[in-house]
């Protein structure tokens, strides 16, 4: 199989139980960081761009880009989609279009995914500093 450079996929964001426990324990906890900086992908899609579990990827949308850890979706296929748990990392690339009802497009933003083996995942503080200068 020819390994591609990048893939165009649909971004879904949502809940996971680890993210839920993490947010209740505290946004500064390791659990919160680890559970919100991962990106679930379809096994076939991962192979297509030569990813193995826990490889770093760069996810880019019209709103910006973010480095995350790619993890194989544990249950069944989800071709063409990636799933990132809610959190500041996911939100840095979500579409802002509210279609005049106040709700940004947290699910369904088109994104580009490519391997980023040498790029680090930013911590919460680093991310906030990068995005808002604080």
């Amino acid at each position, binding site marked *: 199989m020819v390994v591609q450079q990048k893939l165009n996929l*649909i971004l*879904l*964001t*949502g*809940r*996971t*139980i680890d993210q*839920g*426990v*993490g*947010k*209740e*324990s*505290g*946004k*500064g*906890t390791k659990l919160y960081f680890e559970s919100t900086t991962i990106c679930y992908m379809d096994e076939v899609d991962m192979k297509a761009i030569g990813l193995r579990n826990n490889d770093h990827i760069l996810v880019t949308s019209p*709103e*910006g880009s973010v480095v995350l850890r790619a993890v194989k*979706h544990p*249950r*069944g*296929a*989800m071709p*063409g*989609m990636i*799933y990132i748990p*809610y*959190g*500041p990392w996911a*939100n*840095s*690339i*979500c*579409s*802002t279009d*509210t*279609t*005049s*009802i*106040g*709700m*940004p*497009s*947290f*699910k*369904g933003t088109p994104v580009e995914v490519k391997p980023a083996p040498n790029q680090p995942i930013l911590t*919460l*503080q680093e991310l*906030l500093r990068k*995005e*808002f200068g*604080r």
Partner: protein
Amino acid sequence: MSKINSVTCPVCGCLCDDIELTIADGIVAQVKNGCAMCEAKFFSHSNEHRLKTPLIRKDGKLVPTTYTVAVRKSAEILAKANYPILYGWSSTDSEAQRVGVELAEEVGGVLDNTAVVCHGPSILSVQEVGIPTCTLGQIRHRADLLIYWGCNPWSAHPRHLERYTAFTDGRFENSEWMSYLNKVKAAAGRKKIKSLERKGILKHRREREIPTVSDNKPTEILDKKGRKLIVVDVRKSMTAEIADYFLQVKPGKDYELIQGIRALVRDQELDVEEVAGVPVEYLQQLVDAMISCDFGVIFFGMGLTQSPSKFRNIDVAISLIRDLNMRTKFAIMPMRGHFNVTGANTVFTWQSGYPYAVDFSLGYPRYNPGETTVVDVLLRQESDAGLVIASDPVSNFPRKAVEHLVKNPLIVIDPHMNATSLVGDIIIPSSIVGVEKEGTAYRMDHVPLPLKKVVDPPKGVLSDEEILNRILKEVRKIKSNRLEAA
């Protein structure tokens, strides 16, 4: 060491009220009956991320200050603002929310709660078509068809199934827990058989092959007696794993799927072979199961409200329930996230007439999501100050909206250090509602429940209600001084 029973859990919209706590040395030592999130919440009161003293930003750095100063500075910011926003409210009690509405009215601000980024679209649809619904006990007693659509209670509302739906015993319906266990055993057995096959010990025992549980094709499972559990989602979630039937829908095509089902419920013929990736023939079987149940229910979540079409998805989902009530009894319910987001909607509504996105800038409540929703106000860069309470928009809003929030003076009231308090200008610590402060919360089905105070807050830390009352008093003082000066 003391035990406290029947404690209400202040985490999600399930508001489980059977939690048993053991308190030792003024700290929660043990949590019984709760889920993982519940435990984390009750233990969090004593962890290191707790805010204990007010902070104020000086030369770009947050430095400690007093409540008096923090309250006065906050009041000055709000009293001066031309278009402040007051956002959050979903993780506090209705007592604090009441003061919040009064404060927003006093400062002529835009009052919004976290529903805007979760079930706001559901509310918009309810305002268009209504909602046939019920309390959760009604489902426990009567529902024989349970559909979770675009939601994943296993992860987001972990005890929903065990307290209210498939795995509970009601007056007229029984728990499916045993049959679920059997299924798990069968699946384990299947794995074993497969592994034996792989090892070449067993060869093709087809006659005993156990069918896989979830496939897009509805199996005879839809004809089984007792409660049936169906999950509709774009990916196989944890909940889908345990369902009797999992229907995988193409991302962003829920709208078409629901409309297709509606047409079939109305005995219409479709000119297409498949809808949203699902053959019409399968849909017909699903529709038959819906019509022939005694009491059906659809629970829905962010899978519908946040994906393309947003509130129109809910609009047609509710319309489907209206249609189904011509044939049998059916209900629908949003899976509310924060433990008291329903309370925020409820309190805002009784005081102002509107559930969220209330703009008081003209001296009376005005409501038009898209115009008066906080996310839109921020994206259009209209506000000039912000108060955030009991939520974390910097984690939950898109980046562009946060940029404007941070550009203006930002007051944050929260028990914990979170992304928003890290970037705020005045940070006011508060006690944890439902752990260190008693109050009231509304469950996802609008049932009000009392929250308990089980431990003392850190020394000197005030409640949300008290902090808001002090700010309100200070704002009134500033305004009357201003009047006198004029």
